[in-house]
């Protein structure tokens, strides 16, 4: 009807519809202003006022020149604020501008419906940024409003309250949920059709290098890094060292990957060779990990991984990575053994992991040589160094600034710092003593949920530790921080800090109150469920779920499932709709009277078709005189409501009928 060209369809927009549409625009546009330039909101206000004035007849629709000018200004504004590139922001902003300016062309129902369809698309686009389950609820709310607005075109207005307008749409939307779930489960997931620009967000996260002070920013962030659910029991937290990157190159201040580590070769033959040299001991542990978007390719894994999802790569420094930067949340499954031996190194690596800059940090070099001579073996040297750390170092997030010789200054002078300082100085010291060593960065520990045993790792759990090549034992992990502050790895960073330091740390909301903590855990658990089962439902999960339902996945069985459940839902829904008590549509007075009849029916009275309510009550009074007073009062109220239309009376009457007990 809407799209035909008949003149009679050229219906103008009602005041209420316009008001609803404007309200919807606010709600649908709001989440987009996270990325879109904020001046678009100003454009919206101008256009909305303009449209309202048109509605009131005060202003006119813009002429062609004005429209062109407006579009040109907006596009110019977009160009100025976002640049010319084909970025996610500019695409979305362009869509928003179109959505807003279309208001000025809103003349008839056809335009109105078009606007609502555009609104649907914009509603969908907001989920690119927000995919929390709260976003889903928000989306449902917006969708309800959209449907209610659309329905106003086809339904006589029910009138008084917003809820009465919304109710029919809410019901229909709720009825649509079973079909939606079925489609969600069954419709095949296919890969992207073409590469799409993703929202550019500055993410806090591990960077590709480490210099003093880098980690403070991470520790101040409560942002989620990843979540883990273990298949078996959750290992103790002091064993949870999540490797992200390994740094073998030091320039005197900054640790980073060396050229070898960055090269592609490092990931291919060399890493497969390494894989065969890992000796796995003890019980393997299995876990599912859901990594948040980090815009970086490196991932998180426990040493040493044994099997992992096919989509991941394995690097020679024993870490897992993605082949593309992780721009969307991904999940993967890993089997690992915490107990392992890594006995493979090539001569180049031996040399590279002993390299230190030619100049600087002289004192450390001297001491390293001295101590090695003193102790005689690398193991003993490490012991001595750890003892030194333990005796005279202080773990703090707010260390004093270090001088030019970073390591010297830290080791022999300030002696205050946190993981990155300890790891950095430790590795430097080892290398100065001609022992191969390297820095490993990643996360340590995490919050173990008491609800479902899952692990939540946040940016503040960032950590740095070390690996030393010991002849005969291979690469062995050492955590110098644990030597200074063992609580750091056992109980988490919060417990290991002094009260003043703790203030620096990003704090989960309400962490000081037990109840709130508990609620937060529940919340996180719900979130994890959402992410695991909804956001990460992919073709793999789909295949296993369908296999569980159908026994065997074949197109025929899927078709049968769809047809049977689909028509089942349809029939049930139709039956419910058809048989549903139709009293809902009756006026209030009738509803109250029906309730009264029901109560009287319980004592054996039922109204005759020819009787008015009063006649009926009088007949009841004849046989039950004791009800006389209350029934007559009820009838007075009833008539007052039926013929007087007084809302206050309705309330009183309803109460009176509720309190009326003819039986007892």
């Amino acid at each position, binding site marked *: 009807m809407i799209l035909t060209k008949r003149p009679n369809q050229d219906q103008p927009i009602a005041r209420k519809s316009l008001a609803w549409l404007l309200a919807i625009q606010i709600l649908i546009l709001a989440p987009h202003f996270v990325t879109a330039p904020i001046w678009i909101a100003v454009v919206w206000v101008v256009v909305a006022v303009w449209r309202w004035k048109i509605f009131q007849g005060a202003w006119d629709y813009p002429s062609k020149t004005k429209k062109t000018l407006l579009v040109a200004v907006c596009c110019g504004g977009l160009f100025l604020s976002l640049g010319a590139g084909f970025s996610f922001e500019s695409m979305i902003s362009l869509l928003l501008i179109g959505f807003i300016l279309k208001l000025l062309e809103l003349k008839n129902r056809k335009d109105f419906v078009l606007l609502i369809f555009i609104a649907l698309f914009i509603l969908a686009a907001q989920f690119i940024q927000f995919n929390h389950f709260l976003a889903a609820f928000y989306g449902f709310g917006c969708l309800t409003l959209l449907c209610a607005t659309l329905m106003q075109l086809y339904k006589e207005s029910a009138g008084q309250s917003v809820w009465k307008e919304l109710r029919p749409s809410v019901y229909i939307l709720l009825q649509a949920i079973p079909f939606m779930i079925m489609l969600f489960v069954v419709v095949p997931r296919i890969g992207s*059709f073409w590469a799409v620009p993703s929202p550019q967000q500055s993410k806090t996260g591990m960077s590709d290098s480490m210099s003093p002070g880098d980690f403070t920013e991470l520790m101040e962030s409560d942002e989620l890094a990843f979540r883990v659910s273990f298949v078996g029991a959750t290992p103790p937290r002091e064993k949870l060292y999540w490797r992200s990157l390994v740094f073998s190159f030091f320039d005197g201040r900054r640790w980073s990957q060396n050229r070898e580590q960055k090269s592609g070769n490092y990931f291919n033959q060399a890493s497969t060779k390494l894989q065969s040299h890992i000796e796995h001991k003890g019980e393997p542990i299995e876990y599912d990990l859901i990594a948040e978007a980090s815009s970086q390719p490196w991932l998180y894994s426990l040493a040493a991984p044994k099997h992992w999802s096919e989509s991941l790569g394995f690097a020679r420094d024993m870490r897992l990575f993605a082949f593309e930067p992780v721009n969307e949340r991904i999940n993967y499954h890993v089997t690992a053994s915490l107990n392992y031996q890594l006995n493979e190194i090539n001569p180049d690596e031996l040399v590279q992991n002993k390299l230190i800059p030619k100049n600087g940090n002289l004192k450390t070099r001297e001491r390293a040589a001295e101590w090695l001579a003193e102790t005689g073996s690398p193991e003993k040297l490490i012991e001595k160094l750890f003892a030194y750390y333990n005796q005279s170092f202080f773990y703090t997030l707010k260390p004093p600034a270090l001088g030019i010789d970073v390591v010297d200054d830290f080791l022999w002078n300030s002696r205050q710092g946190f993981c990155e300082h300890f790891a950095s100085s430790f590795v430097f010291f080892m290398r100065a003593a001609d022992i191969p060593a390297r820095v490993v960065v990643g996360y340590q520990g995490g919050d173990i949920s008491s609800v479902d045993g899952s692990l939540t790792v946040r940016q503040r759990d960032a950590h740095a530790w070390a690996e030393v090549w010991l002849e005969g034992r291979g690469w062995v992990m050492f955590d110098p921080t644990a030597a200074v502050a063992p609580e750091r790895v056992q109980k988490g960073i919060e417990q290991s800090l002094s009260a003043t330091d703790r203030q620096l740390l990003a704090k989960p909301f309400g962490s000081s109150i037990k109840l709130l903590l508990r609620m937060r855990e529940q919340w996180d658990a719900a979130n994890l469920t959402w992410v695991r089962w909804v956001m990460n439902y992919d073709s793999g999960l789909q295949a296993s779920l369908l296999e569980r339902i159908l026994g065997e996945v074949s197109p025929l069985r899927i078709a049968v499932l769809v047809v049977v459940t689909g028509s089942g839902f349809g029939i049930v829904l139709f039956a419910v709709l058809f048989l549903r008590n139709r009293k809902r549509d009756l006026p209030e007075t009738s509803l109250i009277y029906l309730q009264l009849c029901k109560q009287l029916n319980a004592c054996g009275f039922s109204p005759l078709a020819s009787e008015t309510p009063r006649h009926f009550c009088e007949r009841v009074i004849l046989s039950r005189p004791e009800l006389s007073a209350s029934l007559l009062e009820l009838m007075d109220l009833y008539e007052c409501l039926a013929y007087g239309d007084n809302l206050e009376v309705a309330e009183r009457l309803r109460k009176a009928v509720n309190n009326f007990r003819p039986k007892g």
Partner: protein
Amino acid sequence: MSLLQTRQNYFQRWAAKRSPRADQVVLQHRTIYVFPSKQGLAFLFTVLLIWILGTNYQNNLILGLSFFLTSLMLVSVIHAFKNLLGLRFTPEARQHAAVGELAPFDIQISAVYGFAHHGLLLSLDDEKPVRADLIAGKPAQVRLNTSARHRGWLKLPRILLKSYFPFGLIRAWAYIELNHRALIFPRPIACDQPPLGTGQGENGIYVSAQRGDEFQGFQIYQPGSPLSQIAWKQYARGAGMHLKDYRALQSEHYWLDWQALNVHDTELALSNLSYWVNHFSDNNVEFGLRLPNLTIEIGAGDVHRLNALTALALFGWASE
């Protein structure tokens, strides 16, 4: 195009078989058709775009929205169907019109199952649809118009009932063939002289049967007569209660006579006669009508006019 038309015709014949003409029509599942509207197709296109967006971004929430919208459309099919289910159509009082005017048909719509029905659009032929809403099980009256082209009985053409409830995505429709008719009078066409037959009011003054202001005499009082007509003077003289009888004086009355028309065209003759019937009636002139098969005695007033026009409309329709 022709293929489409043939298919359409085939559907129309098939649909006509399913909904035969009846005195009362109740819509049941056999006679309700549902199909996505044009707007619904546009909606599906939007859903497809959203699905592509979701697939490209591998975002399950967006995919979920596209599935939600799809299932919303599926559910609307049920609601669209239910919106027409159990509608009862009954003809109301018969109306009339002249050829060239719009013939009105009054129809009552009621809900058999008592649910509400929204946004019902009824149309005849290609006329503008009339909207009806049945809220809270209350019946609704609608008047449908179609152009009257021929004199005589006009059968109510097939009614097309459409509804786009709930969201305009699904078009539910039904054809209603109702035994209902309107009477179509001949189109009034003026001619110079009224076709007058013999027996016109003789030159003298004719006393009309209607009340006027010429005193004619006294009548016996009858209870309930207006007080103003009572002859108080006579009553005071003790002559009892009498009524003063005033009559209008009609200087002329006319016989409209078929024979006087020297026209070979029957329709034109009837048109001329109906022009004069209207003319006399409008001017409150008394007239009678002589047709070959029927005579209507001298008279005036709306009922008289209606009788005369009915006779003209049904001239030659005697068989029905």
